[in-house]
């Protein structure tokens, strides 16, 4: 029983990070039909923000704030200089643009900062463990769960109760009508990128807390997971992205914990097979977007 509870905590904490990542992709996709594969590089930017902040010995909370801010700035810059000029392009064109942005950023990190990983040491208090009964719960996974829940709640409030949030939801349903209502397209789109930047920044902080370093290629794995999660959930659907993130996290942890030893090296194959089953069952994802787009 303890083992099961322990694994549930692990699954929720990993799922929370995936949910934040998938949501970051979904916010942008729902509005401009772009799967932003440079989303992982926004995380890397946040990681370097944290590294440089700690290197000049800023206090830890300030470093976190700075990390999220640079991710937002980077998101807005890529929107302004890469994606806005390509707005009239079709889905494939946008997709390729995001690959290009991602590749360019990675080479800039490698040649401009360092090809070597840079350490991001956590304050000693964060690496500990909380004992609840016979459960050992790491402080980092616990913080991941709390942070993910808080971020999702705040995003929900923003989308439901602010004009810009409502505009973003409307844009996801019918962009042309939204423009006819007199809402500036550029503002809504920039806002979507800014929100995705915030989500990438928060996810980066949680991701780095587990790995202790930032390197130029760090964003590759998370963006792939986020993409899978967003597809499971239903591309373009915000609640779907969250559901997909948790589903992927739970699947990964369950297979890791309960597969027999001989099958463990094939864990990812099992996870992805299960994902295929989900898609056979619900081709548009767990919670499809109102206007379904399969890209």
């Amino acid at each position, binding site marked *: 029983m303890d083992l099961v509870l322990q694994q549930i905590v692990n699954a929720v904490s990993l799922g929370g990070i995936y949910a934040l990542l998938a949501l970051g992709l979904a916010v942008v996709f729902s509005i401009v039909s772009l799967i932003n594969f440079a989303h992982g590089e926004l995380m890397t930017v946040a990681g370097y923000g944290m590294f440089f902040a700690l290197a000049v010995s800023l206090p830890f909370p300030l470093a976190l704030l700075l990390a999220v801010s640079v991710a937002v700035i980077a998101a807005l810059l890529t929107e302004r200089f890469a994606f806005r000029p390509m707005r009239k392009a079709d889905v494939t064109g946008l997709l390729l643009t995001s690959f290009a942005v991602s590749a360019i950023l990675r080479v800039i990190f490698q040649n401009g900062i360092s090809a070597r990983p840079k*350490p991001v040491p956590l304050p000693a208090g964060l690496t500990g463990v909380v004992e609840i009964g016979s459960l050992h719960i790491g402080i980092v996974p616990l913080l991941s769960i709390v942070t993910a829940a808080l971020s999702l709640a705040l995003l929900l409030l923003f989308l439901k109760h602010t004009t810009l949030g409502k505009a973003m939801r409307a844009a996801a349903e019918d962009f042309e009508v939204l423009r006819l209502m007199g809402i500036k397209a550029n503002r809504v789109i920039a806002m979507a990128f800014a929100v995705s930047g915030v989500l990438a920044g928060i996810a980066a902080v949680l991701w780095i807390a587990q*790995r*202790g370093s930032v390197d130029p*290629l760090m964003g590759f794995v998370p963006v792939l997971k986020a993409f899978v999660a967003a597809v499971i959930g239903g591309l373009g659907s915000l609640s779907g992205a969250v559901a997909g993130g948790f589903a992927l996290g739970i699947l990964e942890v369950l297979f890791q914990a309960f597969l027999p030893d001989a099958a463990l090296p094939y864990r990812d194959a099992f996870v992805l097979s299960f994902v295929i089953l989900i898609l056979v069952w619900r081709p548009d994802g767990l919670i499809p977007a109102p206007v379904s787009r399969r890209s």
Partner: protein
Amino acid sequence: MTSFRFAVLAGAMFFAAAPALAEDITIGLATAQTGGLAFADQPSLVGFKIAVDEINARGGLGGKYKITLDIKDTRTDTATTVQAAQELVAAGVKVLITPCDADPSIAAGQISQPAQIPTFTFCGTTPTIPDAVGDYMFGTYPADNAQAAILAEHAVAKGYKTGYILKSPDSAYTLKLPEYFAQAFTKKGGQMLGEGTYTMGQQDFAAEVTKIKALNPQPDFIMTAAYEPDFPAFLQQLRGAGITAPVLGSDGIDSPTTTGLGAIADGIVHTTAGFPSEGSKLAAFYESFKTATGNAPETVYVATGYEIPYIIDAAVTAAGTMDGPALRDAIANLKDVEVVTGKVTYAGTNRMPSRDITLVEIQGGARKSILLATPNPADVPAP
């Protein structure tokens, strides 16, 4: 000064400074300056270039062959590496350098082997690289099985009786190094209590840690070749679960991230190609590197890259020629070449050199060298 004396002096200087017989030769580098291997190939190239400049200032390889470099970026792509190797071989390079990984090195070696061009992998550690290619292929960096042998020797010396390994089938390094270790440790009388598997890039080690925690009796130590980001995540969760067994690691964790982990990193012992102990040649090299570039080297790869031209120089001096077969034989017969991280020997090996390896221990956020030795060839598991 009379014009006659001036002419004699100038003539003498001309002959002394620039032997008229000096020949320019080209070394080709098909290495990954961008992409997933850049973390190793970039610093290796930095060191390599410094050594080439020094050797050229002294008159070139063997005192007579000035080196020009032809550098191609393979972008960590094996097909691009092959293409680069083909271009370099066609351009007539005398020596070829390949990336820090087995796959592209073996692929590039297939091109240079029939052309009789001695080829070195920058820092590939897989001990089967030379045999997979042929007699023109050489390694330079401490091989996986040699690192495993030194670690096993340390475990036995510490009095450890039982061990546990954590490995990942995702790369030869993360899979074979722990397996070589288990082989060497059991051969010396130790006992393995079990092994765990992980996927590279997985953030969550709770399942593996729970498995180790359930072992009764607990192992005397845990050995792994995991490196970042896996190693920090594993260590945090291991110590978080209250497991206190010491951890043995390999050169993959020779980075500032490991010491940045704080108190939980205390007691880790791992192998490395070299450590700048006070008064060592490596420390002196790091110092002059810092003076020349303004930055301290980020990794020992700078030093191992720096050593390769000197290994080539020693071979050219012995051979007296840049001719392929003669140079190949000269490299294969090198013995105790002094380089900045210790001594390197090719004679009697399968062209993966027998060389000094350093063991370091982490205490209080800093590393300390605890052993510098060449593993006994009899103790090194067969590749």
